[in-house]
């Protein structure tokens, strides 16, 4: 039985296909069109890589900013429970989760059952999110992925005093004009983000194991900064941490299937029945439908 989880975020859409509790395909893409189109194309891509067809998907759960606009989702679930389930699947001993996404940042405590006990989030301001790094990279005319390498080279990080992303962008330009090394500026940007994240983590109980998820969890310099700040061990999953929400959504989908009577399962196969304007239906699916 194959289930799908789709995490439609603000900057990236993620789809995970799972079978019996393991991942069989995962796809991520930047969002350059309406959610209906992006999400459907993404799942088709995942299916074709796994050699599967649209009507193999038994149940799909969507989450994230655009969750209500994922046309093949049988159920929408809010981000927090999906993240909690996903993080727990990634690292079962996780009790504190810090999720640093494209435009959001959340911290939560979960218990052994994966239930959220306490949480805090930043949803009013983009400081301390992936978008902040993107803007800085743009201003410095470097690739986002190079920021980490640059930051690790710095011996004397610059001080970034503004918190607003838009103002920080100007501040960074000023620092460049003052002749500061790009590596020092980038390190300063990481340090200021650590402070921002620390204030969000500070609102919950920091209990081990602590794990970081979301796209920014791949940023070693940022995670190291958090370790140094809190003087605790922080774990990062071995699977791309960006998929935590989508994995959680797929796990919830799996649970829903378990609750459904086998006779009703066929009625739930939504992906095989929908068409989305502007998305080409893969030939394989048409063949299955015809048979």
């Amino acid at each position, binding site marked *: 039985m194959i289930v799908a989880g789709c995490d439609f975020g603000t900057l990236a859409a993620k789809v995970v296909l799972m079978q019996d509790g393991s991942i069989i395909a995962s796809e991520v893409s930047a969002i350059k069109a*309406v959610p209906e189109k992006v999400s459907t194309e993404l799942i088709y891509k995942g299916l074709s890589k796994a050699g599967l067809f649209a009507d193999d998907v038994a149940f799909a759960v969507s989450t994230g900013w655009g969750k209500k606009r994922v046309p093949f989702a049988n159920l929408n679930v809010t981000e927090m429970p999906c993240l909690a389930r996903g993080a727990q699947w990634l690292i079962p001993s996780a009790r504190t989760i810090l999720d640093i996404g494209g435009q959001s940042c959340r911290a939560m405590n979960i218990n052994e059952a994966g239930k959220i006990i306490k949480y805090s989030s930043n949803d009013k301001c*983009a400081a301390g999110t992936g*978008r902040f790094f993107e803007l800085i990279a743009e201003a410095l005319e470097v690739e986002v992925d190079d920021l980490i390498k640059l930051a690790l080279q710095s011996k004397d990080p610059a001080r970034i005093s*503004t918190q607003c*992303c*838009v*103002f920080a962008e100007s501040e960074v330009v000023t620092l460049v004009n003052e002749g500061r090394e790009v590596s020092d500026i980038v390190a300063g940007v990481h340090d200021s983000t650590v402070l921002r994240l620390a204030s969000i983590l500070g609102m919950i109980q920091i209990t081990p194991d602590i794990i970081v998820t979301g796209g920014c969890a791949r940023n070693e310099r940022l995670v190291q900064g958090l370790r140094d700040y809190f003087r605790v061990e922080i774990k990062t999953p071995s699977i791309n941490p960006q998929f935590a929400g989508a994995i959680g959504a797929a796990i919830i989908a799996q649970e829903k299937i378990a609750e459904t009577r086998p006779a009703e399962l066929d009625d739930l196969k939504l992906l095989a029945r929908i068409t989305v304007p502007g998305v080409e239906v893969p030939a394989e699916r048409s063949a299955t439908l015809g048979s």
Partner: protein
Amino acid sequence: MIVAGCDVGSLSAEAVIMNNGSIVSYEIIRVRPRPEQSAAEVMNMALAKAGMTYDDIEYCVSTGYGRERIPFAQGNISEISCHGKGAQWCIPSVRTVIDVGGQDCKVIKVDETGKLLNFVMNDKCASGTGRFLEFMAKVLGVGIEDLGPKALESPTPVSITSVCSVYAETEVLYWVYEEKELSDIACGINRAMADRVKGLVKRVGIEENVCITGGVAKNVSVVKNLEDMLQIQSQKLDIDPQIVGALGACLFAKEKLLKQENKQFGEKVV
């Protein structure tokens, strides 16, 4: 009596030269990396336009965020006082000045002499500042000066709810994907902008007459939306609203000069 005012802000720099109480020339430029550089450049341009040199200026006051780094200024005064002073000189009945600049937004209450009574300011977050509009114009691929005129044609503006400029950018992008009319998106942006400014105005209260200064005052749609939200009619300036700060600095320069002359005169008498 020739005096000058120089306002070096976060995004633009302005210089105003006055002779015997009337403006003889002014210039506005986009800031250069260093405040000294911006100030020298804009002042040179204003002097050239007036056919003057630095030696003709009897007193110069600087203002704005780079005000302490202007070598040719004899004194510096905060931009809040300068905006109050400048606006009150243009429209003597003004009691509330809403200044929406490049990277800050202030609401200034003044008395009948232009003296500062109270103010509130947002300089921590780009929402409700010119930078917000610049950011949005970039996303839409239009010039910042087009956002106002385009929006006036809109019958059905989109709604933009985020305070954060970065989040608003995402909202705008989605409206673009939805193929909404440019005018509707532009109007939504201007409305969101006006709403942030309104929030600040409400904190200090409003007393008529009101005038709106700073670069954003040139956006007709933001001004109109703000007037509707506050249920007021703002007083229109007959000068460029972006030079009000530099004008205020000029007026302070004149006061300082008069004080100096009086003092010298007084000494002679004794």
